[in-house]
């Protein structure tokens, strides 16, 4: 696994997603929320790319764009050799089974009036031609894979716990044998004691089916555990990307440094001994991002140039990227 050549399964180049803002009775467009504003990254086959950053920085929008749930404003998204940013109709439909999504809120993403069995087999009805028996068998296999007893197939989502509901969502995402899954905060709504169960399941499934994950989360310690590489986002842009070990041990971008230092350390013996970078203020609005480096309004290292020139996204070490004027 380690020695295999790294092959990008997903390649995102200069992706932009701007949501128009309309005002007035005539609904004139008066601006745009630059939710994603020119970002590029690869996801290698079989890896987990973690995507982290504060609320509203554009993580979910990236995930949705990559699955083409939005008409993107600009850029390209190549999955397994096909640019899906411009695909439409039947071509896009044919590509859909390869890429799936697991959502944050297992409650909201499952239809309460459908049984677990029919929720899991719904994608099969849409994309496969299977007999009723074949479908039943497949649903059984999927329930086994995610650790749900087959006898639960006729029950409804509200009869399950949060962790079990998330398993149902995962089983459905696996139904069409996808290669690539976007996990958007899949454990955020779960209890600590249940989170580990779901994370372990995601890891087992990755190994078993050779899955590739884009794992979106604001839980930095869980990302550290799960991710092969990590991308850090701030206000619609990537500020740093590198392999998980390097990024957590030696973050180079001032925002990454502050973000990681803000995570409370579950060790009271060290409380008060850790140097913490406390950022002032809040994240600016993506409808009106500051000029130059978007982090300059909060950056402890900002200089005059930062308020004028936007720093370039460049490789600062092998496979390690960042955007800051002051990284050697």
């Amino acid at each position, binding site marked *: 696994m380690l020695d295999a050549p790294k092959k990008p399964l997903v390649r995102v180049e200069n992706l932009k997603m701007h949501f128009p803002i309309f005002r007035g009775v005539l609904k004139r467009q008066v601006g745009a929320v630059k939710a994603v504003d020119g970002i590029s990254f690869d996801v290698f086959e079989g890896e987990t790319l973690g995507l982290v950053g*504060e*609320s509203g920085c554009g993580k979910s929008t990236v995930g949705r764009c990559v699955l083409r749930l939005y008409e993107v404003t600009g850029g390209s998204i190549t999955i397994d050799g096909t640019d899906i940013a411009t695909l439409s109709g039947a071509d896009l439909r044919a590509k859909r089974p390869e890429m799936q999504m697991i959502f944050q809120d297992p409650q909201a993403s499952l239809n309460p009036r459908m049984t677990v069995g029919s929720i899991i087999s719904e994608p099969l009805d849409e994309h496969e031609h299977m007999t009723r028996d074949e479908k039943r068998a497949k649903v059984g296999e999927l329930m086994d894979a995610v650790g749900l007893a087959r006898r639960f197939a006729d029950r409804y989502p509200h009869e399950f*716990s*949060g*962790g*079990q509901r998330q398993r149902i969502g995962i089983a459905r995402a696996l139904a069409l044998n996808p290669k690539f899954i976007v996990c958007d905060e899949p454990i955020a709504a779960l*209890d*600590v*004691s*249940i*989170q*580990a*169960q779901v*994370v*372990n399941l995601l*890891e087992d499934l990755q190994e078993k089916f050779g899955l590739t994950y884009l794992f979106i989360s*604001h839980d*930095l*310690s*869980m990302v*550290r*555990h799960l991710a092969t590489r990590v991308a850090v986002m701030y206000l619609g842009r990537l500020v740093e990307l590198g392999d*998980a*070990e390097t990024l*957590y041990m030696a973050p180079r971008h001032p925002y990454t440094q*502050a*973000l*990681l*230092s*803000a*995570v*409370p*350390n*579950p*060790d*009271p*013996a060290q*409380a008060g001994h850790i140097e*913490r970078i*406390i*950022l*002032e203020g*809040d994240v600016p609005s993506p409808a009106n991002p500051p000029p130059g480096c978007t982090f300059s309004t909060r950056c402890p290292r900002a200089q005059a140039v930062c308020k004028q020139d936007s720093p370039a996204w460049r490789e600062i070490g092998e496979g390690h990227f960042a955007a800051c004027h002051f990284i050697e």
Partner: protein
Amino acid sequence: MRDHSATVLDVANLKTVFNTRDGEVHAVNGVSFYLKPGELLGIVGESGSGKSVTMMSLLKLLPMPPAEIREGQIEFDGRDLRNVSDDDLRRIRGGEIGFVFQDPMTSLNPVFTVGFQLVEPLRLHMGLSKAEARKRAAELLELVGIPDAASRLKDYPHQFSGGMRQRVMIAIALACDPKVLIADEPTTALDVTIQAQILELVKELRQKLGMAIIWITHDLGVIAEIADRVAVMYAGQIVEHAEVKELFANPQHPYTRALLETLPRMGEARAARLPSIDGQPPNLDHAPTHCEFAPRCKHAFTRCRKENPKRFEVNPAHDVACFLAQSGGSTDA
């Protein structure tokens, strides 16, 4: 054991039940804890373990019915809170005991300015004049780190960011110099960088104001950072209680141990696999008749399924409700 004379809040054997159409929900099952002036007691436990209901029971902040406080003593600053008049209770709420609720958006009233919401309790509880109250309100906003405080008094809650709303909530809770501040998951909905700001603020305020704090969270990292003592809740009971360093260094209850093990740590090498706790928390349709953690406990033995363990003292700063810990590891009983 505990020195009752030195406590500002002392709760013993609190039991709260909800009478719902589907039957009873035993949310709080004999909870006892105390709080000394100036200290910070952290309460951890997963969703539904009874953290919020315990605290709301103290001040009768629950809808009754369906809620019913079945048993227990609640002593606050020498008074028996279960038997004070409604008027007194109202004075204590938001006056001597400040409360920061779990959801800032539902607890700040969207139709009133932040200034009004700060000025009201000051006039009601402290008897300040309008001008005095406005001055104090501005000071309070400044205290919690809101820039340009005086001019922001006329703004409405939606004009503040999530982190700032939480600061406003803290300012309101602090308005009347409470002896006790109860903060229910005040940072859970916030980003880590904003959470770090709030934790810094709380450390600073403790030094300046010296009130006692109860801090509810499910984040052991936050507890490690700010708590003096910790109570771990499971299924409506405190299953372990210790000074913070002792709890992290020497956890006794299998649930506490498992919680600490399942935490991925930032600074350490990556574990091959996260230790997890199988199963789920129990439903609370009856009062506990056995150890409620037994179905998920790797060490459960016969006695655990027959009897509900009482808290027993490991040392004066540490107690735990577990038969295994009590018997020093023997499962013969």
